[in-house]
C-alpha cells in the first residue's frame, strides 16, 4: 500500500514557513501529522535531519518545493514539544521519532493486557513485540 499524501503536500505554500501565527500553527500541525504518518508507514524510528530534507517527506519533486532546513528544525521542535520526538545528540542532527508517544504505548499495552485478563503477569519485551498473542495489535516495532 503506497503512502497517501495529505492534500497540503501538493500546495506550494505548505513548503514555506508561514509568517502569520495562526496560519503557521495550522501548517505546523499538518507537518507534524504528515511526518508521523510517513514514519509510521515506512517504519522509520530515527531520522537524520540532513537526510530528511532530501527524503520525499520534506521534498516534493513534483511541484519542485522542499522544506528549508530551518523549517524542518521548527517542525521537529514542534514534534518534540508534543512528545513525539527526542533528540539523539546535542547538535540536534539525529532524532528518535515516536509516532506513538510513550503514554499512548502505555495505554495501549495496558488495554491489551486487561482485555486478555493478564494483568499482574510478567511478559518479556520479545513476547510483547513478536509474540503470537500480540500479532495484529500494531506492536511489532515496539
Amino acid at each position: 500500500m503506497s503512502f497517501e499524501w495529505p492534500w497540503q503536500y501538493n500546495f506550494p505554500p505548505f513548503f514555506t514557513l508561514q509568517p502569520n501565527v495562526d496560519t503557521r500553527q495550522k501548517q505546523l500541525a499538518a507537518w507534524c501529522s504528515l511526518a508521523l504518518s510517513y514514519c509510521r508507514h515506512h517504519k522509520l524510528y530515527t531520522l537524520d535531519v540532513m537526510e530528511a530534507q532530501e527524503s520525499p517527506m520534506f521534498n516534493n519533486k513534483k511541484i519542485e518545493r522542499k522544506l528549508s532546513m530551518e523549517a524542518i528544525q521548527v517542525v521537529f521542535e514542534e514534534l518534540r514539544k508534543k512528545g513525539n520526538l527526542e533528540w539523539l545528540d546535542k547538535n540536534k542532527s539525529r532524532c528518535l521519532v515516536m509516532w506513538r508517544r510513550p503514554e499512548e504505548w502505555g495505554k495501549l499495552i495496558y488495554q491489551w493486557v486487561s482485555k486478555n485478563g493478564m494483568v499482574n503477569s510478567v511478559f518479556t519485551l520479545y513476547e510483547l513485540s513478536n509474540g503470537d498473542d500480540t500479532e495484529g495489535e500494531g506492536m511489532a516495532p515496539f
Partner: protein
Amino acid sequence: MDRFSWSNGLLEINETLVIQQRGVRLYDGDDKAKMDLGITLLSTHRLIWRDIKNHECCIAMPLSQIIFFEEQAAGIGKSAKIVIHLHPVPANKEPGPYQYSKYSYIKLSFKEHGQIEFYRRLTEEMTKKRWENTPVSQPIPTGTGSQTRAVGIVGIERKIEEKRKETDKNISETLNEQPLHHQTSARGSRYNSVIERGGMMALTEVYCLVNRARGMELLSPEDLVNACKMFESLKLPLRLRVFDSGVMVVQLQSHSEEEMIASALDNVSEKGSLTAEEFAKLLGLSVLLSKERLLLAEKMGHLCRDDSVEGLRFYPNLF
C-alpha cells in the same frame, strides 16, 4: 560622391572657414574619383573641394550629410585617408559631378599630409554642429548676441533692445503657461481617477504629482506629509495610511480595509495564486502597493505565501 553639389566656392553669410588642406584626392567609395588633386576646405557648414588647376571646378556638401568618419592610416605607397560615411542623397539636392554612386562613403586621400589636423577639426565641427545654430540661409539678425561688444550710444541702444526682447520672451512664456495650467488640471483629474481606481496611492507618487502640477513653488516632502495628516481634521474624503512596512499611502476614506482584503482574496482565488507584480497589473496599481495589500490580506489570515526561487507568490489560505 553623388552627395556633392556644384558650388561657386564662396562661403555663405554666417559660414566660417575652419581649415583648408592642399593635395587632397577624392575617392568615390574605393574608386578614385574622376577629378584630380585639389584643395579641401572645411567650413562650419560644409565640406568643400576645389580643383587645384581648374578653379571653376568646385563641389560641396553640407556637414549634416555626414554620419560618421574614420581615419585610415598610411601604408607603403598609400597616403593617409579619412573615410566619410554619408546619409542617403536628399531629395532636393542640387546637381553635382556624380548623378549616381553605388557607394555611401567617400574618402579624402591626403597626398601632402595634414590629415591629423583636418581630422581633429572635422571632429570638432561635427561635435559642435554649428550649422544647426546658424543656418546659412538665414540673414544675420541685427543687434543680437551678447558677443558683440558695443560701446557708446549704439551700445546702450542695443542693450535697451535686448532688454525689450527679453521682456517679450518672458511675456510669451507666461502666456504659454496658461495652457499649461489647463494641462495640470487635466492631470489633477487623472490623479483623482488613479486614486479612485486603486483606492490608494503611494505618498511618493502623490508627492511627484502634486509638485508636477504646481510646477513652481514646490512643496517639501515634510509639508506634504503634514498636510496629509490634516485630512481627518479637515474632514476631507482622503486619509493617510501607514503600512507596517512604513510605506505611506493616501487612500480614499470610503475605501475600507475589509473591501481591500476581500478584493485581494477574490483576485488570488480567481487566479489560483498571484505575485505582487501580477496583482499590480490586474489592479493597475503600483507593485509596492499591491504587495502591501497582499501582505495585509496575509496578516488577516486570508492568504498564505509560497516563497521559492521563483519569487513570492500568494495563495488563498487553505490551511
